[in-house]
């Protein structure tokens, strides 16, 4: 993940970035900042404050209120565990414990090497496949701890190989 501080800060998503003074634009602006950078940085908050005239503190209040916004970048692979009712009833907890054991991550954490982030989501919407996780855009359903371990290990291997290639 590139260090944001060393980069020239560019206004994000030019198409959406046409603030016309209309009320209620704050959340769409924050959404487009997050779409562009993967998270809402302090600089983005300052920039939005500068353009809209809304105090940075108020913007920060909105950012921390909604679950969608992150103030830190995510890892290369994002694992989402579904904690909807169906997944819970069908065993989401052993799924979480297994991932915790394999990657040493709890919810909302990113691993030190920046390879994995773990998030909890309310319902992915494929209750029939419960328990379910998604890794990036791929869905893995009807999981058991052993099945999940295999999946996680294959992602770990791929991520490490990729990191190795990049460093070479």
């Amino acid at each position: 993940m590139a260090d944001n501080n060393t980069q020239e800060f560019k206004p994000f998503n030019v198409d959406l970035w046409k603030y016309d003074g209309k009320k209620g634009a704050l959340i769409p602006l924050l959404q487009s900042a997050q779409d562009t950078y993967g998270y809402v940085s302090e600089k983005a908050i300052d920039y939005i404050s500068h353009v809209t005239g809304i105090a940075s503190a108020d913007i920060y209040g909105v950012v921390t209120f909604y679950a969608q916004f992150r103030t830190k970048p995510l890892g290369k692979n994002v694992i989402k565990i579904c904690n909807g009712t169906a997944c819970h009833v069908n065993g989401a907890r052993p799924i979480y414990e297994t991932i915790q054991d394999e990657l040493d991550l709890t919810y909302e954490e990113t691993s030190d090497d920046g390879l994995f982030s773990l998030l909890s989501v309310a319902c992915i919407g494929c209750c029939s496949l419960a328990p379910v996780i998604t890794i990036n855009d791929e869905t893995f359903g009807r999981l058991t701890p052993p099945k999940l371990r295999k999946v996680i290990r294959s992602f770990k291997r791929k991520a490490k190989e990729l990191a190795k290639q990049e460093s070479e």
Partner: protein
Amino acid sequence: MKTVKVGLGTCGISAGGEKVFRAFQDELKERPNSFVLQETGCIGMCYREVLVEVSNGSGEPYMYGEITPDRVGQMVEEDLIGGKIIEDWLVTGEGREVGFFENQTRIVLRNCGKIDPGSIEEYIERDGYKGLEKALKNMTPEDVIEQVEKSGLRGRGGGGFPTGMKWKFTRGAKGDKKYIICNADEGDPGAFMDRSVLESDPHSVLEGMAIAAYAIGSDESYIYCRAEYPKAIARLRQAIAQAKQKGFLGEKILGSDFNFTIKIKEGAGAFVCGEETALIHSIEGLRGMPRFRPPFPAISGLWEKPTNINNVETFANVPWIITNGGEAYAKYGTEDSKGTKVFAMAGKVKRTGLVEVPMGVTIKEVVFDICGGIIDDNELKAVQMGGPSGGCIPASMCDIPIDYQQINKTGAIMGSGGLIVMDSTTCMVDVARFFLTFTQEESCGKCTFCRIGTKRMLEILVRITMGEGTMADLDNLEELSGQIKNASLCGLGQTAPNPVLTTLKYFREEYVAHIEDKKCPAHECSALLTYTINDKCTGCVVCAKACPTEAITGEKKQLHTVHQDQCIKCGKCYTVCRFDAVEKV
């Protein structure tokens, strides 16, 4: 030539629907013009995804289930070209899955899984926008409201407020500028009715909103949709553009003086925004916190203008009501609750998916006659209705008809339509803890009793599931529940204790078992279980290495044992074992 429709709702895609669709596309490239390929939305039979419907122009279409990309080749070869139905893969037709569709009455889901949601033409072909046309050409706004009142339609988002009355209030409110909001912030964990409707039949919602706007005297509206529903949002954007092009939205609609626009606002993930005043704050770009009512949004809502808020399912009912008349709709249902209700079936039930039934059908009929009963033919223990605001209804009471009044009497609520089925392997204390964890996290923090009270309740529930509860905890739970209900501003706080209260009322003995016997009757609370190792053990020593207290011993390649006196019941051995050799008793 045969037509193939692949179900590409979110559940279909999760199960691999897009891969199947691409496989069909590849086949079509190799054998051009051998069949027609289409996509459709949610068919409703989530338990047999990926679903593929085949029709040959005449006769009833039939459906294949559990289709994978490597089955596509054979299907094209044998059926689409060869004309021979592959019996083994069929899900509908003689002798198969009887009752799932037959026992439903589909008004809201009338087009779901039937039409291509990306095609406005297919919607129009099935009487789409007829309701709007009828309203604009032959009815006054008052006539429209009268029909909706006659239909007896009540808000399907959970509250159950009569829709016609709500429209009347907003129409009667002072002010030139009025807003319509469609609440598509479906946040209950385990509910996906609205998402399916938006993905599979977006025009029915747009048409319902336009009719409401005409009745109320509004020209501008918002759909507040969860950002977690990207597919639904994309479908809505496409549908709005199509409707504008055809003149169903925009200025001088269908040659009348009626103007109407719809904008989409993406929610940013806050359950409390399902509450109408919180939702309005969120659209205004503020923290989504509820405020005191009155004034109700009908008088002072978005930007302090009169605002009418209904949810997706409510709007999807409207075109049907206007086209067929309020009385036709009121024929379905009971004295107190008219029409139909959509349920998202999940949990320990054989057929999970979307089900629409007339009000008045019993819960048991839905679970057994439509959804085929419980997995492994276990015994039904309870159903949970209304999500975090609802409650658990025990099996002994599942003979009651589905009706706002009857459900409320049990302590649960109708809710938006999530119906979770539970059997003997579900721990009711754990269910209460699960919902409290959810509401505690989602409490916006404005009201002290909701913010701190739910936290204290959760702590007590965690303690009980750890086997550290006392009988006095049960009284404390009841007392806190009463205080939270009375001292919270919005629906989230007022209903948060419901899952605890209903489980305490109907399953008190399970709480007592956790507290006095230190046992979890459903074998779910790990701290109250005994872990043992069976003969599937290969002696790989992984569990022994993982055990933090060295409670597992055994030689390499020999059966291992758990020493109960040292075991702290952390469950680590259970999750690390790759051979299903660790058992929980």
